């Protein structure tokens, strides 16, 4: 296949490319574009929360009639939080993260020429692009963007009478998500087939890097759960436009009784969270896979407990599909069901704890190369623990009663999946940038980016737990209607200041990224002295990945600092790539 070079035009090389490396870059850039919008929106609504009575020129400038006089309207606020959530969860941390790194790394790390189907892969990206554009356009429709919260619970999301964002904005939201799901399914099927069938000689499943394990399991949960969201979206579309009553019943709004009868919004919640919870792990597992790889490489040590890591990924994935009810403890569903979901939910803490301890042990007695990617990975382990621990409160039905839907929840999930996954994504970009563009990113700007981001992430989300424990509901446009929340305003200001600093710090990353593509220092083949196969491929991208034969694999990906019987490093260097045969007297781990 590699000998078969047909001539590439600009269009087939850069636009309708079927090469997994180009598609990965397309995913990344699209994800970054959406990310800029998502983060910018969060900065605007943080202004509203901290300074509810002040007017800002920037709000007036960007929000038009939703920000007349420099103050945003409630509908605009709800629109911003809804689209912020949707964009960050699906477009940045699902497609931007999985789409980028699964595409880039699966063929390169398992030793394949490309994805199983380059054509489906291309379709998958373009469907994602289409759904991104529809979501982007939906922001500007004149009745307002979808604004019922990113969970779009009906009846609020189903009835344009209930909220103006539930008009055309919501229709576009549903259309965009339906296309997004199709894209995600095509991608996931491709990843699964590729990992299972196209591994190079010697690449046993037990020799796969943990990144690949994470991508594989992520793709499997995606295939299992995304179709359920598609059905929910379609049924909601039917309720909205064909007058069916899947989710609606007994509604009196604006002076009239609607005809809907017999449906239940709870059904929608079940369908939504059947995807919604696994979605958390669809976001998180790739980030955990990336950090495993980055931490091991930069600690110059094997990842501790490789098999336990795989086991916990599988356990987390399995459990993630049977815990969705913990988002619904207070919906009025049967309390016995609540008990079952409490049980399964708290069990997830066990594999998560195993993973956390394994990361910490990997750091122990390492020789840590603190590159920006490594800092982000360590930061990720830290936020994963900080955010994950409060899951013990939210996953416990009895405790959830009083913190459900408060800012405590917002703090929890932003740390455990938002920030953790973003850190994982940044780690991935810094680490594999040389593989993507053949250049190095500036480490100084990387450090600056990390330090500002890490401090502001904690500065935003740590105090947020406390305003949640004070009883402040999430999705309040303003806290001024309740005197009992008056004393939270100064904490909200602190949060907003950190949020704006943290948001602006991402410009450093963007500048670094785009500048490095053009002007970055040329990368060597294996800049981080890593073991996995992608570093045996030439720096220059070629269709088919390797000149000549695909390398054969003889060992796992974590032979860092392996010593022989005399205590000397094998081969005199602290890493042994996977394609090096087992030496005389060496035992395969």
């Amino acid at each position: 296949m590699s000998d078969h070079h047909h001539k590439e035009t600009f269009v087939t090389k850069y636009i309708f490319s079927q090469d997994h490396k180009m598609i990965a870059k397309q995913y990344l850039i699209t994800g970054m574009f959406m990310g800029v919008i998502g983060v910018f929106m969060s900065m605007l609504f943080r202004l509203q929360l901290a300074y509810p009575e002040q007017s800002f020129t920037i709000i007036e400038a960007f929000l038009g009639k939703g920000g007349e006089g420099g103050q945003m309207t409630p509908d605009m606020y709800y629109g911003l939080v809804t689209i912020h959530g949707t964009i960050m969860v699906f477009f940045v941390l699902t497609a931007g993260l999985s789409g980028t790194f699964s595409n880039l790394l699966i063929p390169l790390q398992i030793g394949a020429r490309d994805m199983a189907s380059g054509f489906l892969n291309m379709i998958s990206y373009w469907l994602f692009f289409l759904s991104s554009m529809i979501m982007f356009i939906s922001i500007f429709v004149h009745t307002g963007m979808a604004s019922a919260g990113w969970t779009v619970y009906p009846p609020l999301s189903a009835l344009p009478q209930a909220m103006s964002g539930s008009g055309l904005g919501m229709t576009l939201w549903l259309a965009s998500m339906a296309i997004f799901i199709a894209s995600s399914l095509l991608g996931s099927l491709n990843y699964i087939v590729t990992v299972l069938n196209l591994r190079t000689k010697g690449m046993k499943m037990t020799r796969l890097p943990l990144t690949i394990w994470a991508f594989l399991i992520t793709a499997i949960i995606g295939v299992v759960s995304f179709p359920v969201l598609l059905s929910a979206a379609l049924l909601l579309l039917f309720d909205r436009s064909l007058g069916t009553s899947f989710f609606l019943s007994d509604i009196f709004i604006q002076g009239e009784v609607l005809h809907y009868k017999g449906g239940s919004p709870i059904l929608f919640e079940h369908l939504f969270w059947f995807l919604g919870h696994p979605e958390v792990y669809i976001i998180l597992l790739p980030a955990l896979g990336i950090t495993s790889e980055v931490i091991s490489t930069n600690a110059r040590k094997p990842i501790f407990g490789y098999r336990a890591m795989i086991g916990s990924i599988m356990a987390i994935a399995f459990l993630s599909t049977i815990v969705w009810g913990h988002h619904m403890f207070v919906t009025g569903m049967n309390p016995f069901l609540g008990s079952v979901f409490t049980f399964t939910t708290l069990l997830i803490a066990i594999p998560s704890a195993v993973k956390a301890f394994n990361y910490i042990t990997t750091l122990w007695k390492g020789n840590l190369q603190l590159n920006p990617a490594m800092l982000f990975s360590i930061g990720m382990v830290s936020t994963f623990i900080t955010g994950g621990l409060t899951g013990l409160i939210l996953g416990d039905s009895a405790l959830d009663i009083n913190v459900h839907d408060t800012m405590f929840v917002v703090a929890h999930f932003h740390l455990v999946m938002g920030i953790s996954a973003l850190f994982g994504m940044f780690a991935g970009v810094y680490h594999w940038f040389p593989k993507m563009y053949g250049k190095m990113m500036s480490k100084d700007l990387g450090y600056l980016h990390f330090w500002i981001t890490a401090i502001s992430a904690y500065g935003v989300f740590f105090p947020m737990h406390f305003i949640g424990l004070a009883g402040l509901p999430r999705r309040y446009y303003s806290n001024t209607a309740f005197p009992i929340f008056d004393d939270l305003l100064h904490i909200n200001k602190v949060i907003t200041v950190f949020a704006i600093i943290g948001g602006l710090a991402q410009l450093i990353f963007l500048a670094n990224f785009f500048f490095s593509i053009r002007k970055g220092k040329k990368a060597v083949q294996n800049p981080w002295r890593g073991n996995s196969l992608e570093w045996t491929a030439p720096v220059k991208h070629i269709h088919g990945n390797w000149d000549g034969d695909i390398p054969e694999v003889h060992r796992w990906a974590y032979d860092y600092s392996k010593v022989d019987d005399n205590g000397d490093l094998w081969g005199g260097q602290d890493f042994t790539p996977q394609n090096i045969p087992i030496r005389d007297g060496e035992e395969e781990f």
Partner: protein
Amino acid sequence: MKALFFILIFVVIATAFWQFFKLLGLFKKEQVASEKENNINGWLMLGLGGFIYGLMLYSMIQGKVVLLPMLSASTEGEHIDNLFIITMGLIFVVQFITQFLIYYFTFKYRGVKGKKATFYADSHKLEMWWTITPTVVLSVLIIYGLWTWNNVQDLSNAENPLIIEVYAKQFQWEARYAGEDNQLGIGNVRFIKGINTMGVDMSDLSSADDIPVRELYLPKGRKVIFKFRSQDVLHSAYMPHFRAQINCVPGMITSFGFTPSVTTLEMRDNEDTKAKFDAINELRVERGDDAVEFDYLLLCNKICGSSHYNMQMKVTVVEEEDFNSWLKEQKTLAQVINQ
């Protein structure tokens, strides 16, 4: 147009950065961490660990005053509070230890040229320990949690409970007491007409003595069972001081119950409440607003439309005899409608 202006400013700033980086030569140098950078960042990571500790301690000390009163206003809430304190204690212990290990190890093992990392890839003993320990701890939490949950949710054996319907709509709460027969008349949105805003079926024999109200009064020491309905979209009835919350779902009746244990007046005398309200009133006076007194609240906690953030109802807990005399003064639904 102004938006374009802002975007233009961003572009100019970005270009300025670009030129600045070029001058600094940031992109020309070696881009793999050197020993010096390992050292600096190792120390900084230790500092980040310190920052996180500082933030935790500061938030715990300074944040305490803004929290809900530690005293639960319902008997059932006390179990929730106990479980909460135990879980929080556990969280802080684990958080302190693990964060210490992460940042201390990062600092201690920061890369040094020529140093060898230890090849340490697995240990069944360690793996076993950190599977078993969380399992044991979680078993305790799960058992205590489920016991508390069932205790709170079980409304079956309440003796002579007070039954109240709480009715949600965009963007206000209404309520109706079950009246003398302690039975609520049937309600459905199809019966909404004029003054019958909650859609009560007046042909139902239990309806006439129901008592509609716009503010909740609850007796101390008697179990209250709430039945929730919604007229339009999802709402959530959240009464944080009672540790109570349940969604109001159109087309369905949900329920929740608790026994109020602290009257409004008693809660106003509570130390936590006083401290919090002193702070609040100081801010309010500074701003030129009136000072306020503590009151229990029912607030909406599920996004329900543009005024979701201001959907509230006052709740007052009084001694049982005061409650009974208050209730006698209220008009029944039949009286209200036939007026």
